[in-house]
């Protein structure tokens, strides 16, 4: 019967992170709760500095860019790729340049799109409603919490140039967020890693892909990691984690050799240093990570216990993984059963008390009656 229940549970929860049991799945399970969606809305105009021509019409261009991000501090600090939030040609200005090129193409004014974009990078500026105003940037960090979808406005704490480090730290006014640990040392070539990002921005579903560090490189004095394969659109800015789920890199761009290039976590560690950002995991993180460890050690009872502790500490994503552990046969101490036992004990105790009191009263009465009978008989 228990086996049958387990089968039912697996059918009910087939899409959870623990559907498979491999190293990258474990790493992904550890890091997944900290992965967020970063949406950046850019608004502005493009001006060719050579001719003075302004593109964008009366209302300007509105371009939305989506990236992934990773919560590195429970106090609302999020790491992502700099090119997602940078205002320069490799960031927001580049997004507006692309919008201008698309509009010019419709007017028959573009030969080669790549060359056109390069010309704008060299001679164009992206600006606000006047040449002395910067373009508008609206950053939002979205994540799934226990109440559904949480959307928070974000600000940029600090960033490196997209071509010199490509990491940024954002701040959202949230607390108690699940985090990942940052691994400050660079992993060796060949180290197995997992890349996480959003397969869908609609339901914020996070997917992952395993791989291995194929090489290390430097650009403008900043270290980068390379691994084989390309990234999907929703993975840019997302975490590259090692087998323990610790952050080793931030997904950047695809190189000319079709390798994915990730900024090294050491660049991120340098960026947050001295800013008072607490990178210590919270009790929810620790309990959740223990739960994942226990789960992959086939200790489903222990996993459920740890996930319960994570939930009690406010971890927003432990519930679904707890269900997965239950589906694999983990047992939980049911509050319903305990409650029933408490009620039964309470009733038994009250009945016993009443019985005991009744007995005492009856004994008292019985003790007085013989004296009265004796008087009458006399």
């Amino acid at each position: 019967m228990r086996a049958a229940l387990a089968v039912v549970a697996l059918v009910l929860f087939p899409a959870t992170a623990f559907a498979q049991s491999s190293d990258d799945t474990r790493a992904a399970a550890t890091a997944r709760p900290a992965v967020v969606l970063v949406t950046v809305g850019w608004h502005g105009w493009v001006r060719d500095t050579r001719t003075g021509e302004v593109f964008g019409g009366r209302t300007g261009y509105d371009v939305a860019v989506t990236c992934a991000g990773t919560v590195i501090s429970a106090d609302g600090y999020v790491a992502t790729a700099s090119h997602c939030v940078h205002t320069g040609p490799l960031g927001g200005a580049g997004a507006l340049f692309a919008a201008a090129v698309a509009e010019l193409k419709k007017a028959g004014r573009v030969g080669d799109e790549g060359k056109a974009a390069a010309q704008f990078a060299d001679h164009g500026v992206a600006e606000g409603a006047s040449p002395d105003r910067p373009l508008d940037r609206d950053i939002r960090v979205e994540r799934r919490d226990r109440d559904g979808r949480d959307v928070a406005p974000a600000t940029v704490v600090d960033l490196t140039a997209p071509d010199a480090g490509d990491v940024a730290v954002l701040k959202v006014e949230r607390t108690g967020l699940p985090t990942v640990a940052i691994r400050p040392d660079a992993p060796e070539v060949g180290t197995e890693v997992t890349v996480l990002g959003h397969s869908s921005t609609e339901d914020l579903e996070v997917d992952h892909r395993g791989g291995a560090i194929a090489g290390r490189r430097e650009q403008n004095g900043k270290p980068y990691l390379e691994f084989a394969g390309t990234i999907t659109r929703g993975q840019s800015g997302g975490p590259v984690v090692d087998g323990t789920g610790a952050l080793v890199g931030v997904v950047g761009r695809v190189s000319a050799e079709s390798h994915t290039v990730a900024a090294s976590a050491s660049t991120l560690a340098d960026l947050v240093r001295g800013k008072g950002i607490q990178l210590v995991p919270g009790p929810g993180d620790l309990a959740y990570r223990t739960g994942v460890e226990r789960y992959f050690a086939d200790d489903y009872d222990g996993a459920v216990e740890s996930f319960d502790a994570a939930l009690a500490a406010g971890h927003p994503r432990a519930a679904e993984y707890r269900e997965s552990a239950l589906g694999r046969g983990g047992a939980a101490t049911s509050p319903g059963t305990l409650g029933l036992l408490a009620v039964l004990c309470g009733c038994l105790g009250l009945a016993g008390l009443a019985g005991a009191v009744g007995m005492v009263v009856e004994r008292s009465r019985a003790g007085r009656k013989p004296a009265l009978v004796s008087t009458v008989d006399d």
Partner: protein
Amino acid sequence: MTDPSRLPGKPTVLIVLLTALCALAGTVLLTAATVRHLPRRPAAAQEGDRPSPTPRSSSTREPGPPLCVIGSWQVAEDTVKIKFYTDADATTFTGSGRLFEFRPDGTGTEKHDNHVLKSTFEGNEIRIVSNGAQDFTWTTKDGTITYLTRTSSTLVYSYYDQRGLLDSHPAAGPGDLYDTNDFTCERGRAVESRRDVEYRSVWNRTTAYGVYG
């Protein structure tokens, strides 16, 4: 009447009492355990501490000239009615090859390099040959283009018929134009026209100016 021999003894009462107390103690412990296992709300900040995104305030900018007009153009086909002889009706001339450049600051240039307009009159070919350039200012509105002023000109027109060169003179100098034509532009092709002089000019975009990449 109660039979004292059937009353419970003191040990029995004590046992019942102890059992009841134990049960009550168990109740307390189980209740505590139940409360501990009840799912708790996340220790997140209160709603008032969780700011949500606010809509961006709108900003606008006075738009420049239409994107499509800006650039360089070469006339593929000119058709226009011109009064060539003072004592004869206007005849229809055709030609091609004029070059235009429309700039985003509202200025423009028209270039003629041995540009020829041809027609026939009483079986003879008549021609207007032009050379030089003129600069102008322009604007567009609701499907029309208006040439506002001529700011400079080096254009010279020469008139030929079967007898040879009849006359040659420069175009007018700087001054107001306020010459409005219908104008349509789509991708690499533009058409300028004006009904009262049966003027129609078809232009093709060139890469000399205003094209990226």
